[in-house]
């Protein structure tokens, strides 16, 4: 058993140019470079990616699911932000 567990990194893959990076899973690694190498060997053995991001899991700041109702509440009552809120008079096209 190693004295201390290697830190955990979250892995994000861009599957092809034009698409965003997407979370794939995580790997343990002693340092950043090893995290990239391990992520490549673990998550892109079949050319699933053209670009990889790895970030230490403990550096991610996340919203709290238990508070998500309150956290996202400000957007709840603003239905006028959606185009479907507006009535389009008959006879008006391409709006």
């Amino acid at each position: 058993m190693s004295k201390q567990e290697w830190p955990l990194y979250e892995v994000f893959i861009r599957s092809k140019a034009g698409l965003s990076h997407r979370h794939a899973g995580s790997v343990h690694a002693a340092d950043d470079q090893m995290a990239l190498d391990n992520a490549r060997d673990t998550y892109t053995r079949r050319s699933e990616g053209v670009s990889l991001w790895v970030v230490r899991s403990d550096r991610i700041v996340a919203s709290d699911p238990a508070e998500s109702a309150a956290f996202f509440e400000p957007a709840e009552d603003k239905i006028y932000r959606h185009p479907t809120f507006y009535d389009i008079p008959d006879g008006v096209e391409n709006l």
Partner: protein
Amino acid sequence: MYTQGLDQAGKDKQLASEAEDRLSAFQARVDAEEKIEAKDWMPEAYRRTLVRQISQHAHSEIIGMQPEGNWLTRAPSLKRKAILLAKVQDEAGHGLYLYSAAETLGVSRDQMVADLLSGKAKYSSIFNYPTLSWADIGAIGWLVDGAAIMNQIPLCRCSYGPYARAMVRVCKEESFHQRQGFDIMHALCSGSDKQKAMAQDALDRWWWPSLMMFGPNDSESKHSAQSMAWKIKRFSNDELRQKFVDVTVQQADFLGLSIPDDDLQFDDTTGHYTFGEIDWQEFLDVIAGNGPCNRQRLEKRKQAHDDGAWVREAAQEYALKQAARTAA
């Protein structure tokens, strides 16, 4: 004092009813096919069940490298060797996807590895059987990975998001494993009488252990009902086993091999094959640690872990030194 006692009782009652509310809200989410994510509230028993199942699954992938790794240096051609190497590497990858999914539930990698090495955690019974000939590599891909796919495809819809996503990845790769196994069997069955006999011998030895992979009969399965209610499991052990038999018998017919079961026959009324009784004593013995290779598998795993300790420590020292140098 007396009134304080009353207040406490009232509070306990309130806490209990809050816990009940949370439990039913959780079940409602599961029933609505919502995915549960890592940081969401979940019942402790749900978390425990998942940690047990996902870590067992991960351990199976890791131990599963051994029976096949046994033939890497003796594969009959460079092509077969390259394919087998890729497959064994995939098994390591599957283990890592799964450990990563289990870690989202708050259990550490070191703890899971320690539980495997101490014998506290289980892994699939199938990997305690020896690979005696090259045909066993074909039989494992065809039967063992075939059975694994039956089990794993429904897991892609498991209620726990990180597990379901890991399984999507695993299933995509598993299909290559099964086909390469069938391809080995097909090559042997199209070869000399001796080669065909080798394929039959492998089927004879791997058939029953493969059926055991689906676990005990439904009537004996202790975790099943709750796992179904939580939508961790979608089909029962017996349903999946039946599915596996139905598709595999036809494939054996194609290969010209015979399934080692005198009771096997097609039932016209149900449209399914009926098959003989599984030797459950053998299953229990293997689970209890007394299969043909249990001790060897764990010893090898322990040795690999111990032999790698200096590498893990050196990498860590190097990382610390680099970080200190950058900071200075």
